């Protein structure tokens, strides 16, 4: 009985995830992810459109954060986690033996659920990335990168007089924008955002959402979110996950107005939580 249901699920999954955009920057093919014995993602296929905002939605534990962390190989940090299948960035397999995970993470930046500024000054928080990557040659150049990054993150006017103060002393929303500025400063192609607003109040959330909207001109953004309203507001494409499977993927407007899969329908109307 169960196996039949399973097979049906897989069929419907393949049917609905045939959205294959041409200008994809990241593409996952047949990706399985395991935590020890437990499989967290099943046969994932997903192409992410360049210079757009893609939202990954779904109930808790559906594997969306796991997939996100595959894109910059943050899962390498977790010893029991292993990834199978292929993920390409700009056509190159990111698991290839000649790929430098450090360069990969420079190109694919990440913003985390809880703001995590370093316990250093605001300036040093931003300057850390450019420094380790040797991206600037002079202090003046570095100053410029810091200023530009903070401006892009919409934080410059609020902090320009206190760049030498601790980054941890900012408010939650400011901290998260600081983390975004920090990610921008190393000039990534892609920015991964793992529920970036879940620890923020509504006003700070609105500021960060505006920021995301501005950033999409220069960066490809993949955002994991719990809030369907947020996905609808900021993203152009949306992928819906359920129990480790990609159920449906397509233009955000389609997903929210005319979902093809019953489970997507149930989720966006609040029947699966």
């Amino acid at each position: 009985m169960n196996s039949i249901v399973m097979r049906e699920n897989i069929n419907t999954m393949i049917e609905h995830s045939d959205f294959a955009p041409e200008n994809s920057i990241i593409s996952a093919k047949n990706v399985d992810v395991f935590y020890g014995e437990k499989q967290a993602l099943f046969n994932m296929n997903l192409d992410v459109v360049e210079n757009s905002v893609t939202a990954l939605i779904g109930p808790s534990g559906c594997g969306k954060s796991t997939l996100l962390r595959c894109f910059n190989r943050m899962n390498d940090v977790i010893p029991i986690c292993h990834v199978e299948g292929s993920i390409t960035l700009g056509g190159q397999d990111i698991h290839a033996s000649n790929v430098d995970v450090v360069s990969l993470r420079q190109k694919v930046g990440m913003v985390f659920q809880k703001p995590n500024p370093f316990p250093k000054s605001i300036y040093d928080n931003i300057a850390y990335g450019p420094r380790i990557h040797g991206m600037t040659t002079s202090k003046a150049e570095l100053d410029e990168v810091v200023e530009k990054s903070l401006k892009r993150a919409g934080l410059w006017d609020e902090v320009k007089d206190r760049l030498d103060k601790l980054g941890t002393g900012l408010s939650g929303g400011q901290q998260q924008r600081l983390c975004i500025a920090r990610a921008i400063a190393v000039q990534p192609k892609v920015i991964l955002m793992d529920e970036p607003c879940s620890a923020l109040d509504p006003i700070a959330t609105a500021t960060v959402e505006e920021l995301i909207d501005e950033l999409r001109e220069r960066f490809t953004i993949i955002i994991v979110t719990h809030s369907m309203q947020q996905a609808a507001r900021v993203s152009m494409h949306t992928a819906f996950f359920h129990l480790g499977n990609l159920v449906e993927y397509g233009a955000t407007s389609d997903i929210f107005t005319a979902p093809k899969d019953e489970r997507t329908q149930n989720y966006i109307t609040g029947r699966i939580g």
Partner: protein
Amino acid sequence: MTDHIDIIRVEGSTRHRAQKRFQLYGLLAVSLSLAFLFIMVGSIVLRGSSAFRQSFVQVEIELPADAIDPDDVRGTRFGKFLKQALRNKFPQATTQKDKKQLYKLVSATAEYSIREQVEDNPQLIGTHAKIWVRTSSDVDIYLKGYVDTDLDESKRRLSDQQLEWLALLQQENKIESRINTKFFTGGDSREPEQVGVLGAVIGSALSLLVCFLLSFPLGVLTAVYLEEFAPKNKFNRIIEVNINNLAAVPSIVFGLLGLAIFLNFFGLPRSTPLVGGMVLALMTLPTIIIASRASLRAVPPSIREAAMGIGASKVQTTFHHVVPLAMPGMLTGSIIGMAQALGETAPLLMIGMVAFIVDVPQGITDATTALPVQIFLWADSPERGFLEKTSAAIMVLLAFLIVMNLVAIILRRRLEQRW
């Protein structure tokens, strides 16, 4: 199509080399410390294992019936018979110097060993007996291969003449290497071939017993008070800070305390396990308190709520439910504390446990030494023979420590519950 994104590793870049180098430093640091551990333990085992064997020499000895009273063997001096026997064996030793060298082949305590054997076997009296006695330490060390015979005679403890005699005895199979049981059954001695660790082991055991009986109840009850009952006020905060600081006070300071207060003020007997145990108890107390508190904290609040919920008082809840559940952890912590106390030397030096004591102690008020202090004393002795005995005593000490730690680990695995 997207632009080319460069994520290829540049082999040998400065950053990667720095990364590799840093990890290597860490591994190197760990290896260095562990190499030291292995070299230290290894060299001690290497030096010490020979101490568990002892060379014996067979002497053919006349025990004339007219000179030995069978009812008073204990009062008979066997030295002269032994010397006669040695002279008979090697009649060429005629000068005073040669005779002296000859007598030095056997242990200075050999005559007592003969007396004991005659006591056990009175029919030997009046016969020509073949009796095995210990060789002297110098001979023992030579037979174990520790003496470089290429060295000039004047720089050796054994002369060429003595080596010749020994070669002859070996040819006649009159020298034997036996297991040195004396090492485990005897007390201290001035003669390296005669020493044993039993006195020190019993001394340590008695001290630890006193230490445990004092520090375990005190430590556990203090932990119970601080963890379960103490209101968060300034007074209790002082107690807590006090205990934490006490844990880091140098051990020798506890020795000074014992000397000034237990010995000089209360006039308790010097060099005894009683005082040693009391000093060690004060030192161990913080360890036990800290471990017991951690163990109490690990008992989930649901247990307390359950007991309170059926109407148990705070005291009942604590002693009927919480303390029994925390007991394995408390015991583990205490055994580890005891293991530390067993290795402690400095405070015992202060309260006079460095005395030279031959007898095995019978109670906690007998003067005695302790195992680590015995090691210190032997390490200080100039005779070559003590080197292997010191190493062997260290092996005994380490064996006890390992057993105690293993017991603690097993106890933790067996009894500790996971919540």
